[in-house]
């Protein structure tokens, strides 16, 4: 049976925290990419947004749409920005030890077309205020995805993890 889902790299944030998690020199030998993340922020708030940039592109070419529920109400939002929002993760005032889980999927990342992204995320803290969200985004830039930068608003807390997988279609 063909191996279609392969771990490329993994990272775990140490005690000092980290503002960004960058995957660089991503091999161009797969069909799609997937990043599975577990994260928490060090900033003193219940929940904070997490963002992503692809291929080192920092201009305002990312268009996104988000559908989100917070345990009480559901809402949606959209926009164009210098990055794509991909998750809402717990901050320092959220329940201790709670982390958000999210999966980022980037199909056809080597293509010469704009790059699409989909993300499903759960920002849970074992309390009423917890988030479930779906994100979709497009980077209007045809660069191949050779790097992925995941950014949080202050610093990823210790024990946050991210693992990059390559997926082959055969």
């Amino acid at each position: 049976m063909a191996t279609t889902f392969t771990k490329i790299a993994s990272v775990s944030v140490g005690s000092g925290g980290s503002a960004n998690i960058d995957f660089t020199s991503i091999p161009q030998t797969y069909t799609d990419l997937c990043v599975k993340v577990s994260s928490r922020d060090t900033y003193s708030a219940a929940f904070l947004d997490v963002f992503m940039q692809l291929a080192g592109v920092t201009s305002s070419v990312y268009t996104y749409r988000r559908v989100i529920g917070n345990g009480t109400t559901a809402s949606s939002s959209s926009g164009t920005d210098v990055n794509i929002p991909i998750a809402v993760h717990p901050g320092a005032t959220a329940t201790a030890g709670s982390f958000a889980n999210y999966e980022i999927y980037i199909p056809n990342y080597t293509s010469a077309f704009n790059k699409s992204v989909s993300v499903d995320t759960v920002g849970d803290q074992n309390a009423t205020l917890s988030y479930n969200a779906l994100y979709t985004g497009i980077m209007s830039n045809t660069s191949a995805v050779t790097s992925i930068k995941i950014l949080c608003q202050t610093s990823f807390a210790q024990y946050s993890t991210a693992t990059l997988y390559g997926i082959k279609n055969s």
Partner: protein
Amino acid sequence: MAILDKLLRRNTMSEVATAIEVNCATGEVTERPLTTEELAQREADAQAYASKKHEEEVAAQAAAEAKAALLTKLGITEDEAKLLLA
């Protein structure tokens, strides 16, 4: 200044903002301070985010006040309005 730092999610002198970089070709993991460009981008992003959040809060507050004013004008409670619309 401390409040502005917090609003802009800026690190103070004692906290050097770092990035963890994983080179997928070599497997090498390095932790490095953010570059000047990254710090500038981070600050610009934080300011834009704070501004957007503020606009959303102002809009939400205005909507809540308009709703409350309408309920007062109609002389009904929010629960009664929900009953009417159910």
